[in-house]
């Protein structure tokens, strides 16, 4: 984590704690922006997106370091006259925001996993998008639920019927995520003309940078993953 000092002379006249605001350098604020973007995409996408391993890892480290620094400073100031330092307060707010973003990101993923746990585990693509902890969670979640079904009802049935199936005749009882849901998206880079629906007779749409559209999710899945469009 780089500690950027303000190059100008103003750094010398600023109160000491204000200069320390530079602790959260531009690199980190970029990461925070990326996390916010990932969190929003996850929130509005009907399916689970790839896990941002390095981003999460780095920001967790930042949080730990900042928490330690804040605690240290609070302790040092607890008896002094500068107990209610503005700088310290601002830093607490800032780190609180980062924690909120991380929590929201992970929670939205967890809820998606819970909602479609079995399918997420069986589908190779979705399985590859989970972190190791999420994978363990999903497995245990499914086991817990199936054990509950067995003990609450299925044990009372003859053995042949005790399995939990996914299909009931020709009806898929556990449908996948609603991929055809409409989402609002903001096009970041020029994508050019792309098909926006499965129907080949439908017109293709030109997606230029800066455009905002409301489209079905499925045709633009790959664009979300590659970062060409953001969900709103």
């Amino acid at each position, binding site marked *: 984590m780089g500690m950027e000092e303000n190059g100008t002379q103003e750094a010398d006249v600023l109160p000491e704690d204000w200069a320390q605001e530079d602790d959260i350098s531009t690199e980190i604020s970029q990461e925070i*922006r990326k996390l916010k973007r990932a969190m929003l995409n996850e929130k509005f996408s009907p399916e689970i997106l790839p896990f941002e391993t390095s981003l999460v890892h780095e920001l*967790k480290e930042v*949080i*730990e370091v900042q928490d330690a620094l804040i605690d240290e400073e609070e302790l040092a100031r607890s008896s002094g006259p500068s107990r209610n330092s503005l700088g310290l307060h601002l830093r607490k*707010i800032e780190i*609180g*925001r980062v*924690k*909120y973003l*991380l*929590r*929201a990101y*992970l*929670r939205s993923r*967890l809820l998606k996993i*819970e909602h479609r746990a079995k399918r997420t585990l069986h589908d190779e693509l979705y399985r590859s998008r989970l972190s190791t*902890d*999420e994978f*363990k*969670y999903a497995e*245990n*979640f499914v086991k*817990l*639920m199936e054990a*509950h*079904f067995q*003990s*609450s*009802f299925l044990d*009372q*049935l*003859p053995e*042949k*019927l005790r399995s*939990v199936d996914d299909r*009931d*005749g020709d009806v898929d*009882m556990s449908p996948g995520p609603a991929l055809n849901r409409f989402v609002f998206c903001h096009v970041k880079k020029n994508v050019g003309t792309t098909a926006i629906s499965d129907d080949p007779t439908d017109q293709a749409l030109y997606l230029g940078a800066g455009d905002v559209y409301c489209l079905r999710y499925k045709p633009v899945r790959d664009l979300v993953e590659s970062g060409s469009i953001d969900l709103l």
Partner: protein
Amino acid sequence: MFGSVAADLVRELKNSKWLLPFNESSLHTIAIETRSIMEMITSTVSEFREKLDQPEVLATVMVFHRSVQRNKRCALAYLYKRLERMRQMRWEYSSINFAELSNNLSIHERDYLSKYNRLLGEYCESVGLDLTAVCTPRPGLWNSA
């Protein structure tokens, strides 16, 4: 008519917002009905062994089979939905053990809840954050780009 108890169970679920007392007796009735349908299937098949390709026999067995599937589906949907509601309450009200409502849960459901709490706790620990903490952002979060 087969499946009427199952349909009532699902209807009860649909008409309630949170968690009514666990309907142990309906589930038990459904299980018994299902077992008796299974017996009817076996007896029909053995009685009409030579005539199994006849449409009447096939149709009978089919009706029995579909009824069994339907009963199972309704029962599992009931259980599943209750679990979903329980989890929802747990997330919204944190780990307050909703003592009044736990009277409406079956023993298995109470067991599920405590195991679920543990599972969630393990995940939160491995991640380092309590995911069920404050769900609303502090003001000013969206001001920056």
